[in-house]
């Protein structure tokens, strides 16, 4: 596992627009987050994985909020802790609202390690059309921003903004989503 210095190097490269470094950073971050959430939500591996995904989107859409004069891991865990507290608050709210006294049972042992309860792909459908199209084409169908621009008639900067806004909305939806 990468240490603080290596992680920070990857992250800063990612901030400058390096795709491979961004992927490497998010992969390392996912491992740290998984350990963090699993140790705090014992026996609820899927909830933990939901939180990992939600926090990854948060780290990515809020990456400009990192102050390089402080440790990157402090930033990462501050956001992770915030997402966890927000999750527990929502869970408490839900418990009072509907799940009171319901036995949620044991987690399904057949779940794969990186299976989350909610499917981010289906949440995409809830986004406004422009944001959904931009994210789907660029982020999922691997088309370039230029191709997407030509296919949709939207300007390239419009598409970039739509992706950024869409991801932020997506993170909010991930938080509001009620896992069943």
């Amino acid at each position, binding site marked *: 596992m990468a240490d603080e210095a290596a992680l920070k190097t990857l992250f800063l490269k990612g901030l400058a627009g390096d795709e491979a470094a961004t992927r490497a950073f998010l992969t390392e971050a996912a491992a740290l987050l998984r350990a963090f959430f699993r140790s705090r939500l014992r026996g609820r591996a899927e909830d933990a994985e939901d939180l990992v995904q939600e926090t990854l989107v948060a780290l990515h859409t809020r990456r400009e909020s990192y102050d390089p004069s402080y440790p990157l891991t402090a930033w990462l865990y501050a956001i992770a802790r915030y997402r966890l507290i927000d999750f527990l608050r929502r869970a408490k709210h839900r418990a009072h609202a509907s799940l009171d006294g319901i036995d949620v049972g044991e987690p399904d042992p057949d779940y794969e390690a990186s299976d989350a309860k909610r499917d981010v792909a289906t949440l995409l459908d809830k986004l406004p059309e422009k944001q959904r199209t931009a*994210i789907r084409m660029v982020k999922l169908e691997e088309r370039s921003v230029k191709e997407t621009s030509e296919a949709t008639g939207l300007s390239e900067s419009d598409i970039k903004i739509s992706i950024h806004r869409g991801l932020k909305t997506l993170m909010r939806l991930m938080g509001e989503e009620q896992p069943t």
Partner: protein
Amino acid sequence: MKTDDLINALSRGVEPAERPRWRMNLAITLVVGLIVAVALVAIGLGVRPDIGTARMPVMMKAMFSALAAAVILPVAVQLMKPGRPLGWRLFAIALFVGVCAIATATALMGEMPEQRWQAWMGGEGRAPWCVVLIPILAVPAAALLTWFMRAFTPTRITLTGAAIGALSGGVSAMAYAMYCPTDSVAFVTTWYTLAIAVCAALGAFVGSKFLRW
């Protein structure tokens, strides 16, 4: 969607991140909050009639309030981004409150025993209304600061709400000084400080609702 797929999707075609500029925005937010509070004092309460001769004490009280805001500002700024320690910034606030307490005690010692209570309360038969009025005048600045803060990423939202509340309280107290008829040191160091603390408490309560992201 698997986490690895999500990571691939997020990193695909990533652009250089923008560096948000915040200093100018924060300065504008604070100045606008102050102007609105001044306008509210001028329209709603009225500037004190002896403002011509009382320029010095009004300035002193405004300076005191500005100092309170300046002491809170570093904490508020630090809370804009995740993972930054508060350390000495909290200590500075504690120091400020401590100095206020000493100033209050010293000033009250200087009064004749039978006049102490009056000096503290702002005169015969009066009550420190600033504890109510400063928080009310702080509402516009607090709303603007909350709006400003929502563009950033506070992760300790209750504390951030308190910092926003206290900061807007300091700004509002600067405006309130134009109206405030009481000039005694013990009055200002006690009740202005308490009014700002009330703003902080209200901010902590409201902040956790409006600063979620």
